[in-house]
């Protein structure tokens, strides 16, 4: 088991990352807090060794995505409208607010690959390893997600 200082360092390093992934999947603050506790508890209890900072970060991404999916599928999960989170988090910049809303409006199977590719700048091969799908499937999801973004936002900035 990792110690308290390692736990605090992990929270400092990855809390924003975990928050962003929760934002893609979840609809309220209470669920986000649950996922935070779950993910960082798994981190301190994880007995494996991370081979690099990149390995550790990819592990956090995958555990967070899986925790969000498990929560959404749980029988007792109650869903709330997303508007409260949007109001809390919405940017003051109209363009950015539009992009954020559009990404959140994508079907769930495109949201995480689009986020991981464009914001976290993972390659399709790396994304495939993180989310447990074939590389070709990730290419397909990126292409379709990109097409949806282009349709809603326009512009030529979605070619890769």
């Amino acid at each position, binding site marked *: *088991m990792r110690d308290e200082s390692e*736990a605090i360092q992990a*929270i*400092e390093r990855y*809390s*924003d990352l975990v*928050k*962003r992934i929760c934002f893609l999947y979840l609809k309220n603050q209470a669920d*986000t*807090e649950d996922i935070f*506790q779950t993910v*960082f*508890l*798994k981190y*301190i209890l*994880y007995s*494996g060794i991370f081979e690099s*900072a*990149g*390995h550790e*970060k*990819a*592990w956090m991404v995958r*555990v967070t995505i*899986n925790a969000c*999916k498990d929560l959404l*599928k749980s029988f007792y999960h109650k869903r709330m409208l997303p508007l409260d989170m949007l109001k809390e*988090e919405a*940017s003051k*910049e109209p*363009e*950015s607010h539009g*992009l*954020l809303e559009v*990404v959140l409006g994508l079907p769930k199977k495109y949201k995480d690959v689009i986020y991981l590719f*464009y*914001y*976290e700048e*993972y*390659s*399709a*091969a*790396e*994304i*495939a*390893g*993180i989310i*447990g*799908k*074939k*590389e*070709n*499937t990730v*290419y*397909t999801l*990126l*292409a379709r997600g990109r097409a949806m973004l282009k349709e809603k936002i326009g*512009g030529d*900035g979605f070619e*890769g």
Partner: protein
Amino acid sequence: MKDDWNNAFDQIRASEKLKTDTAAYLKREMEKRGRKKQIPFGYAAALCSVVLVAFLGMAGFRFYQTPVSYISIDMNPSVELSLNRLNMVVGVKSYYDGEASEADHLQNLKNKVYTKAIRMLLNSEVFQTSMKPDSLLTFTIVADLDEEEDLFSGIQTSSKDAGCESQYRCTDAATVEEAQNTGLSFGKYMTYEELAQYEPSLSVEDCQHMSMSELQGKINSHAHGESTEEGTLEDGGTESEGNHEGHGHSHGHGGESGHE
């Protein structure tokens, strides 16, 4: 363009309260686990005796019987194994032509370590009569992250003499739940989902009578055609050291490159 993404997502940050609350929660959990190690020896010895009796009793039976990991073995037919915390088989379900059954003829796999159960299954008449040189044997795991590596290793060792091509992958509890009542094992259902992305009109019923090699062949045909079209638009990518699906002996978890 990159600025737009940064502007959109940079604003999403964990609040100090969330970080502080999480740190406090972790501290409580660590203290709880630490306190468990500080029980006086005499009391601990007595407690261990009570725990041992309880384990041998009903609580132990429930512990033994509770599945925590699942392996779907798919060719055509399909078999799902449920494993307990000791990696012993506590449940067997078979799927053939859309019919799920408790597989009376495979109940001898129960209470075996999963590696032995897999060897027995692959040598059984059910699989031997269905296996051809061009068959595709697919193993799909649902397990805790820290169990996957060991399970993969055991499965690969147990199946190395299968006599046909094998592939290994992981999925999640959501896929298992979605697969229920479809007449497909969760491993075959995962392949159906992948093919359905290319063929939206494909139904579960269509897949029930198809072998894994037929399904995978269709996926490969579609993917080969699409990747040729999309490859020029994409970042060529680095060769991933940790692909989550593999053929033969390769598998992994997480990405390896640093993007901090």
